[in-house]
């Protein structure tokens, strides 16, 4: 049951083979058993969770269930959920109880989904290993010595360990796709503006986007049907018609379901820096796509390497502005002792933020400060356009782009924690899509031998054109019809 798809769970619930309370309870039992070692969840509230499950059972009995009614999901702790501790992985918000719901939470509530709890994450979503969380690191369910990736590391570990049926994540530079890759799941970062950011704690507002993290593309499509849609409370939410993200998946099966699909392979994604074992897995996955009828086209995204320097100007600049709200006045941490107002600000922020968040605020403050704006911020915005134009050119030749989601399998906890630049390079293949605002996803494509031991999951990345999520999900789904990497589960007793 814990490995069932959302569709299977929904049909079991609707056929009354199991109640939502029973299903929820079975996940809560697993959480009690495994969360103390994995640390995927920051906040659990069994009473609230079971109340939702009970309400879902009533709704199913009344005959007006939706595709997700009664299904237990995990929510990244970046989303405000009324009455829930909402920390964004920070000491700054350790005591913050959200007074309202994020749009994403409202959507899931209205669909009748059950909230199992709030998942661990890098502090304010700044990190690629979940090690910057004030609430401690998260174990990769495939190997407890290794990180789950980040920043949505708690959601990734929760899905991989089957401590929830599916989860939400957010992705500013790869925070859905890189942990999905490292934990062996399917994760989608939609086009910018497709999912409302209302009530989602801001990191870099021109890049932040929420999306699903689940076992399969089919599950991600069902999650997207709930999450996506116009919301007037987010000024960048797009006014588009409601879409059925499952629509491509349900077409009749043929031997070559992707006949005529043009897959672009950017040479920059296979250059120096990519682990050889990971490259092998990606090449094998591309071979499967050839058998499904796709045509492979060599393309170039020449400015890929610049995406990291550009991102580490723009994201910290936006973060330094967004995080100026944490001043110890109205909510969040306030220092215990202070002299005047400035001293209160200085001490509250020094105590409330962790080292990586402080570094990024300082970088952002520096690049925006008088005399440096043109050399850094403006320059980065100009190169951001070059990066976006690379994709526009590429999509003239192909329908989707494929490559690795991360340069290696999961690395060991502590390995990169003192070297921010090495950590930042984890996102070399994911950041450019955020800068361009394009959708990207990662799906399990196999396992590669890590240099220090076990075979760990590898994610294949699919990048699509703007608003092409339904096609991307089908491209992933067809692969998952002929492979079973997405169904493999870690052995938690051995990890």
């Amino acid at each position, binding site marked *: 049951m814990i490995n069932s798809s959302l569709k299977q769970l929904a049909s079991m619930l609707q056929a009354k083979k199991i109640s939502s309370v029973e299903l929820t309870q079975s996940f809560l039992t697993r959480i009690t058993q495994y969360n103390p070692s994995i640390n995927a969840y920051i906040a659990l509230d069994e009473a609230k969770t079971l109340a939702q499950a009970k309400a879902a059972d009533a709704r199913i009995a009344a005959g007006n269930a939706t595709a997700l009614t009664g299904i237990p999901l995990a929510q990244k702790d970046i989303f405000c959920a009324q009455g829930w501790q909402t920390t964004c992985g920070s000491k700054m918000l350790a005591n913050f109880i959200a007074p309202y719901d994020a749009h994403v939470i409202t959507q899931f509530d209205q669909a009748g989904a059950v909230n199992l709890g709030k998942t661990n994450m890098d502090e304010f979503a700044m990190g690629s290993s979940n090690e910057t969380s004030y609430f401690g690191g998260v174990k990769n369910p495939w190997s407890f010595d290794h990180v789950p990736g980040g920043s949505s590391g708690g959601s990734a570990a929760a899905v991989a360990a089957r401590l929830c049926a599916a989860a939400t994540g957010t992705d500013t530079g790869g925070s859905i796709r890189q942990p999905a890759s490292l934990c062996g799941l399917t994760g989608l970062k939609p086009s910018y503006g497709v999912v409302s950011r209302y009530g989602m704690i801001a990191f870099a507002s021109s890049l932040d986007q929420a999306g699903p993290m689940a076992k399969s593309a089919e599950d991600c499509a069902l999650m997207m049907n709930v999450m996506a849609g116009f919301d007037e409370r987010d*000024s960048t939410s797009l006014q588009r018609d409601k879409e059925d993200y499952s629509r491509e998946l349900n077409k009749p099966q043929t031997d070559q379901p992707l006949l005529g699909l043009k897959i672009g392979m950017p040479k920059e994604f296979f250059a120096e820096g990519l682990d050889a074992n990971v490259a092998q897995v990606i090449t094998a996955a591309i071979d499967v796509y050839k058998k499904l009828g796709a045509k492979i086209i060599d393309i170039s995204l020449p400015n890929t390497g610049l995406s990291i*320097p550009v991102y580490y100007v723009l994201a910290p600049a936006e973060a330094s502005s967004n995080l100026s709200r944490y001043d110890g006045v109205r909510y969040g941490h306030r220092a215990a002792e202070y002299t005047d107002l400035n001293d209160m600000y*200085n001490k509250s922020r020094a105590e409330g933020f962790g080292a990586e968040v402080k570094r990024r*605020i*300082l970088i952002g403050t520096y690049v925006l400060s008088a005399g440096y704006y043109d050399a850094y911020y403006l320059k980065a915005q100009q190169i951001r*356009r070059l990066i976006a134009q690379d994709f526009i050119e590429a999509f003239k030749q192909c329908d989707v782009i494929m490559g690795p989601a991360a340069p290696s399998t999961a690395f060991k906890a502590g390995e990169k924690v003192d070297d921010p630049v090495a950590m930042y390079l984890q996102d070399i293949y994911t950041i450019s899509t955020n800068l361009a605002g394009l959708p990207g996803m990662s799906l399990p494509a196999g396992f590669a031998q890590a240099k220090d031991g076990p075979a760990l999951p590898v994610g294949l990345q699919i990048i699509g054109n703007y608003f092409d999520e339904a096609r991307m999900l089908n491209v992933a789904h067809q692969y998952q019809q002929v492979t079973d990497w997405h169904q493999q589960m870690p052995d938690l007793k051995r990890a």
Partner: protein
Amino acid sequence: MALSIEDIKKIAHLARIEVSESEATATLSKLTGILGLIEQMQAVDTTGIVPMSHAQELHQRLRDDVVTKTNQREAFQKNAPVLGNGSTQPAVAGGLYLVPKVIE
């Protein structure tokens, strides 16, 4: 441009984050590494390229000029921090937030 300890202290002051002498030293080495990465941008000729400030090239939507928010002061003030300086009370009084005296 190489950063100095004095630069770090100035930036930290602008960002309102207190840094000790030892933190400033540690931060200097990390930030120097990150700025080294960022310097790669300077090799690109960007003459005439229009800056891209956002993923969407759209104008901001306008909404009707009507009140949409309700007063939730009491709910929001439940999250007020502890006053500090010896008091364990929330930093609120009479619906206002308490901060150190700003105007003499």
